[in-house]
């Protein structure tokens, strides 16, 4: 099961449990949010799951050209034989199953109609996110929070992976503030070493993208439990972005240009 967090002797799976564990270790990205902002976080995460996730699952796992030329070989290369022959197919079937069970049914009678509807919903969701983000750096001002991580986790694979069928990707690329949002987070939090290219460099980039994709495809409950008791106790405040800006200024070629199609 992925994603998995391994901390010393502890192994934790499922995004919700991982977030809980991190909070118990006093790492909380939402420390400075107000109660209303915390509530907004839950609401927007629900929006992502309901409106954007079906189309993402479709783009990665159901759209035949995308699945056969990108997703399947990519995942198969990461699984050991013989799982590589079986698991991608199973994940594809589960994705289609989920789409049909949650969004199929009358008055949509064919797969084509369901597909049209989920892509319409996804484009509307992207538009809503773009309007909400506006010109801010992050969704709640100048410091990133859990919502930013979730949105990034959904958007970045869609933004960066080179697909043959690019309907939704094209729509995302028109929303410049969302693209800038992804690029910022990629360059500040996912940058490679100062020396630039390393033999393991491309591998770790692939591994990061794969982890992001797996987060998107996770079918379990992605909504984190807000623990009131933890929020009241002393916490480490999130890293301020300003210090990282100074560090990033001296770098050479930025990672996003290596990743872009």
């Amino acid at each position, binding site marked *: 099961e992925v994603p998995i967090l391994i901390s010393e002797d502890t192994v934790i799976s499922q995004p919700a449990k991982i977030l809980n564990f991190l909070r118990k270790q006093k790492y909380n990205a939402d420390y400075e949010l107000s*109660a*209303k902002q*915390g*509530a*907004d976080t*839950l*609401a*927007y995460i*629900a*929006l992502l*799951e*309901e*409106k954007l996730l079906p189309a993402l699952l479709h783009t990665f796992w159901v759209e035949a050209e995308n699945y056969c030329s990108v997703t399947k070989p990519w995942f198969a290369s990461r699984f050991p034989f013989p799982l590589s022959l079986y698991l991608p197919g199973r994940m594809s079937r*589960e994705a289609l*199953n*989920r789409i049909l*069970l*949650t969004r199929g*049914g*009358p*008055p949509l009678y064919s797969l084509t109609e369901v597909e049209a509807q989920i892509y319409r919903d996804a484009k509307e969701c992207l538009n*809503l*996110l773009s*309007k*909400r983000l*506006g010109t801010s750096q992050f969704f709640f001002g100048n410091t990133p929070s859990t919502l930013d991580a979730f949105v990034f986790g959904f958007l970045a694979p869609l933004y960066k992976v080179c697909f043959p069928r690019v309907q939704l990707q094209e729509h995302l690329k028109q929303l410049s503030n969302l693209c800038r949002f992804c690029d910022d987070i990629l360059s500040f939090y996912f940058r490679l070493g100062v020396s630039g290219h390393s033999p393991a460099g491309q591998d770790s980039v692939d591994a990061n993208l794969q982890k992001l994709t797996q987060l998107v495809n996770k*079918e*379990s*409950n992605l*909504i984190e*439990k*807000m623990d009131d008791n933890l929020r009241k106790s002393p916490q480490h405040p999130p890293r301020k972005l300003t210090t990282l800006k100074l560090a990033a200024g001296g770098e050479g070629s930025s990672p996003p240009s290596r990743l872009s199609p």
Partner: protein
Amino acid sequence: AALCFQAFLQMCNLPVRVVCRANAEYMSPSGKMPFIHVGNQVVSELGPIVQFVKAKGHSLSDGLDEVQKAEMKAYMELVNNMLLTAELYLQWCDDVTVEEITHPRYGSPYPWPLNRILSYQKQWEIRRKMKAIGWAGKSLEQVLEDVDQCCQALSQRLGTQPYFFNKHPTELDALVFGHLFTILTTQLTSDELCEKVKNYSNLIAFCRRIEQQYFEGHDKEGSSSAPSRAAKKSLLR
């Protein structure tokens, strides 16, 4: 769910007559309830109904700016994602509730053995969906915790305002009212779900306000809505 759209139509000042039918699910174009029948058109589910009413010139959310509209849609998804799924879970995946309440209620318009067959079929359908979205592995405590989290978010968002977007109700208010009122007034095997909502006094006040403003005087029609209502109790318990 019938209550959500009834509240919405009352808020738009549109006259509505509620009628109960055993075959309502089959009459609906999407198989889901509620649906409205206007002239020779039939529209089901809250989203399309809101669009339909908007096309006829009535809208509750025109006064909102783009960011507020985004927020409203996000909160509506939160209600659908958490509250509605929790209600379905309780009705169809909690064995005690299924045996004592749901099966008898769902099969009541039909003779034996059709009543059992249809309700098992529905149960199988709902459980399949729960499995696909990852709720099948949840325990009742986890589901109740999710409901609590959702109510906490709604309560924090509502704050001390009369409605979610201050002075005027929107479709979000109708949706939240419909779900909360149903939870508060439907009799289940235990009071746990109801108690979760009752922890939030501003949500109770919100429901009471909407009930008084839009349903007082329409009580007779209100109490005949949806055959799914097992027993109606006053909110003033």
